[in-house]
């Protein structure tokens, strides 16, 4: 349990740094004079085209779902990578079968054009 104390210290330091920067800015900086341009959402200097709170295309959902599945796949590869040497060739083929079945899914999504944008 003691090894997590380092993470706790790190979290605390991050909070202190963020709070200090904001506090220093508030104390030393000039009083805020908001204008239309100043309060605009910042997107790399490009003026926003429309409200961000609009309905998005359902295509994003397919991409998100596919991402989720392959993210889960990665979760299984972590423990496999740790014990890879002890498992030997059997472990190697176990993972190849697992990945092979998932590659079928990727090929299917590819063939059906789910990865194409337009």
């Amino acid at each position, binding site marked *: *349990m003691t090894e997590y104390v380092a993470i706790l210290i790190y979290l605390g330091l991050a909070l202190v740094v963020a709070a200090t920067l904001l506090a220093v800015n508030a104390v030393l900086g000039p009083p805020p004079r908001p204008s239309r341009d100043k309060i605009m959402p910042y997107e790399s200097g490009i003026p926003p085209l429309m409200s961000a709170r609009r*309905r998005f295309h359902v295509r*994003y959902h397919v991409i998100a779902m596919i991402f989720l*599945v392959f993210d889960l796949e990665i979760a*299984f590869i*972590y423990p496999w990578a740790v014990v890879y040497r002890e498992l030997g060739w059997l472990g190697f083929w*176990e993972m190849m079968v697992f990945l092979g079945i998932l590659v079928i899914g*990727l090929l299917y*999504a590819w063939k059906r054009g*789910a990865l194409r944008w337009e």
Partner: protein
Amino acid sequence: MGEWIAFVGLSVAALGSGLAMVLGRQPVHCAVVFLVTLLSLAGLFLLLGAEFIGILQIVIYAGAILVLFLFVIMLLHAHSGEGPRVKLRAQPVLAGLLALGLLLGLGTALLSAASLGRPHPGPPPEGFGTAKAVGTTLFARFLLPFEVTSVLLLLGVIGAVVLGRREAPEKPPRERAAGTARAEAKAHAKGKEKKEVVPR
């Protein structure tokens, strides 16, 4: 002592953010508050010595599933999920009954465990809950469930593709239904056309 403080702090954070999520009115705020719930639960997993599950909780739930929730909120309504409030009259009663059932079940389980006088299980064995321990168990003893998981994930991919593609042939009626989104898209397209004309 430190463990106790961490447990109470994480539990309060998990319960508080859970309540805030259920009671919140802005769907996006609810989703972000839910992130606090997930991270507190990850902390509780770490406290229990389930190191690997705790990290997975952050990677999978906070990193992927919550993002999916946000996507769904963005896809559902023109104003980020702020649809009309739907009142379900049976919901509070049903929720109360189910919660009562859960409370009774958990209470009986706890009481019977206490009355049986089982000795405290003690600290987990060395290396418990690490990625290594999970790996050795998963790829030897639970090999079949592991391989079957890939079929489950495959079904997920196919389901997402099929559901996402279905809207392609019946596009006109859907666009009419989403009147505001269509108008916005139109305005957007017009703006683009103008911009493209200027350089020529």
